[in-house]
C-alpha cells in the first residue's frame, strides 16, 4: 500500500491567501441532533467552491467571534461544501445558529486526507464514534462512488444515545444496500432499541474483513480511537493500515502558530490523518 502522501491534493486547493478567509454563505441548514447542525455553503461571489479530499478540514470564521477547524463532511465528488458542526464553544455555537443566507468565512482546505485511493483493493473498516461520523462520511461517499475498487466495506458507528446518532436516514439507506455492512451500537438505550448496546469496539468482531488486506479508518474521541486501534491490531490489521484523525488546538491551520503540535508533528499539516504506526508513540503518553 502506498504512503498517504500520494493522495494529498495540490495546495491549489487552498483558498486565497492562506490567513485571509473567503466569504461564503449558508445555502442550507439542517439540524442533526440537539447540539449538531450541518451547513451547506457556497461562495458569496458565486465562484466554484473549493475542492477537497476526504479527511480535510477548513477553518470556519465568523467576524468578531472567531475561527475554528471543522472537518468537511460532504461528498468530495460533488461541488458543495458541507460541514457538520457541534456546539461545544463560543464559535461553534455561533456557527450552529447561522441561518440560510448568512455569511461565514472559509480558509482551506487543509490537512492530509484519508488514503482512500491507496486503499483500493482492500477490505475497508470504518469505525466512527460520536461526532467522528462526520469526518468519515466523505470516505463512505468516495468508496461507494468506486465500489468495484474495494473489497468488503464495513461501517461501524458508536453513539451515546440513539437520538444523538448522526445521519440516521443515510445510515439506514446505506445499510439497505446489499454491498455494505452498517452496524450501530449505543452506550445506553431504552426498551425500543433492538440493536447492540455497548462500546463500538465490540462491533469489530462482527465486521467482515481479511485482516491482512484491510484498511481501517477510525474517527472519534481520542480514547475511543486508542481502544479501537488496539482491537483492530488484536484482530490482525497492520498498524500501517489503521488510520486515525487527530485533533489539537489550531489557530492558523498552516503549521506556523505552533498550537497543534503533538511531539514533532503538526496536526494541521502533517495530519490530521495519521497511520497508527506513525502516531502511536505520541498518543500513548499523557499530556504530550
Amino acid at each position, binding site marked *: 500500500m502506498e504512503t498517504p502522501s500520494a493522495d494529498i491534493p495540490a495546495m491549489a486547493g487552498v483558498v486565497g491567501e492562506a490567513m*485571509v478567509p473567503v466569504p461564503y454563505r449558508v445555502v442550507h441548514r439542517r439540524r442533526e441532533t440537539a447540539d449538531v447542525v450541518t451547513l451547506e455553503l457556497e461562495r458569496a461571489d458565486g465562484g466554484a467552491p473549493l475542492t477537497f479530499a476526504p479527511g480535510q478540514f477548513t477553518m470556519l470564521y465568523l467576524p468578531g467571534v472567531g475561527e475554528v477547524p471543522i472537518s468537511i463532511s460532504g461528498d468530495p465528488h460533488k461541488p458543495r461544501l458541507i460541514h457538520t458542526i457541534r456546539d461545544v464553544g463560543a464559535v461553534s455555537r455561533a456557527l450552529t445558529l447561522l441561518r440560510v443566507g448568512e455569511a461565514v*468565512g472559509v480558509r482551506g482546505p487543509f490537512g492530509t486526507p484519508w488514503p482512500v485511493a491507496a486503499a483500493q483493493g482492500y477490505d475497508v473498516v470504518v469505525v466512527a464514534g460520536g461526532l467522528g461520523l462526520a469526518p468519515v462520511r466523505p470516505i463512505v461517499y468516495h468508496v461507494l462512488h468506486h465500489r468495484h475498487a474495494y473489497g468488503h466495506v464495513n461501517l461501524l458507528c458508536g453513539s451515546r444515545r440513539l437520538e444523538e446518532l448522526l445521519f440516521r436516514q443515510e445510515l439506514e439507506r446505506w445499510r439497505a444496500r446489499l454491498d455494505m455492512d452498517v452496524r450501530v451500537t449505543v452506550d445506553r438505550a431504552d426498551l425500543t432499541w433492538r440493536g447492540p448496546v455497548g462500546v463500538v469496539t465490540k462491533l469489530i468482531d462482527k465486521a467482515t474483513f481479511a485482516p491482512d488486506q484491510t484498511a481501517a479508518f477510525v474517527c472519534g474521541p481520542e480514547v475511543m480511537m486508542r481502544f479501537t486501534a488496539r482491537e483492530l491490531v488484536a484482530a490482525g490489521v497492520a498498524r500501517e493500515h489503521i488510520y486515525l484523525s487527530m485533533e489539537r488546538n489550531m489557530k492558523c491551520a498552516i503549521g*506556523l502558530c505552533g498550537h497543534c503540535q503533538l511531539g514533532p508533528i503538526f496536526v494541521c499539516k502533517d495530519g490530521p490523518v495519521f497511520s497508527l504506526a506513525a502516531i502511536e508513540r505520541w498518543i500513548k503518553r499523557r499530556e504530550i
Partner: protein
Amino acid sequence: MAPNSYVVLEKSGLRRLVTALREGGRSVVGPRLRDGAIIYDAIESLDDLPIGWTDEQGPGSYRLRRRDDQACFGYVVGPHSWRRFLHPPRVTLFRLERTDDGFTTRVPVPEGPYAFLGVRPCELAAIAVQDRVFLQGPFVDAGYAARREGLFVVAVDCAQAGATCFCASMETGPRAREGFDLALTEVIDGESHHFVVEVGSEAGQAAMAEVPHRPASEAEVAAAMAISSATTAAMGRQLDTDGLKESLYDSVDHPHWDDVAGRCLACTNCTMVCPTCFCTTVQEVSDLDGRCGSRVRLWDSCFTTEFSYIHGGPVRSSVKARYRQWLTHKLATWIDQFGTSGCVGCGRCITWCPVGIDLTAEVRALRQTAAVPAHEGS
C-alpha cells in the same frame, strides 16, 4: 563563492553608515538603553547606542554597568531579539468590513525596509532558524518574507561572552559566519577605536562604497579573529548537543521534569525573550456595531493553559508537561521539524527566568540521571 573582503571603519565611518542607511529609505534599528536594559529600537544615529555600557547576566539576573571605555557594542544580548521586527508581536492579518452579502478584507502592507545594526552571531543564527520556519514550509508567511526581503544586516561579533551564553556549544558564534551584509568586530586598543568589517554581500559592498573606509591589514584581521577566539574560550555555559535529540525523545517519563516543574512558574518569560520562538495566537477586534473589524495575530506561549485547549480542557494541564513541551521542542522535535536545533545558545531564557532555571543545567540533569525504564507492554 569568493571569500569575503575585510575593511576597516573608523567610528566616524560607522556613524556615516547609519546615516547612509537612513538616507537610503530604511528604518535603522539598533541597541538602545531603556528601562534598565539594552533593547532594540529605532535609532537615528550612532549616539543612540548604549556607548560605554555593558551588561552582567546570570540566571534570573540582568544588570547594566558602566564600562571603563567607550565601546559601542560592549555588551551581549538583552530581552529583545530581532524577531520583534521580522515577526512582530502584534500584526494585523486583515481588516474586514461587512457587506450585504458577506464581507470584504484588506491586507495591510508589512513594515520596512529595515536595517538592523548590531546583530550578534547567535541572532543571525536565530534569523536563519526562523527563515526555515516561515519561508521553507508548505505555507510561507508573506509578511515575514516581505520584511526579510528588504532587510540589511550589520552584524557585530562579540568581544565578550555573557555569563549565560553558550553559542559555541550550538555552533552559532561568537563569530558571524553568514547571513549578514556587513559584520563588525569592534577593536579598542589604547587610543585606537575602529571596526574591522567583513563584507558579506553585494549590498554590503554597495553600502561601504558610500562610507569612508580602507582595506584591513592582515594584522588587523588577525586581531579581530583573536578577539573572537578569546570570546569562545570565555563562554559562560556549555551544552552537550551530541545525541541530544534522541536523549530527549527518550526522556518523556524522566523524573527530572517533576523537579523543574517544582520551580517553573509558567510565566512565559523564556518564550517571550527567545529569538526563535514563533508561536502565535489570533484575536478578533471589532467595532461596537460589528460592521468593521480586524483579525490580529499576537505572540503566544506554549506555557499557558489555553495554548493546548481542546474539548473542554488543555492537553498539557500540568506545568511539568508544558515545560517538557518547550524544552523538548526547542532542542529535539525542532530538529525533526525544521532540520536544525531551535536553540542558538543566546542564554536569554536563563537570564530572564525569574527563578533562574538554566536549560543547560536541566539538560545535564536529564542526561546524567537515569530515565524511567520503559514499562513492560507500554
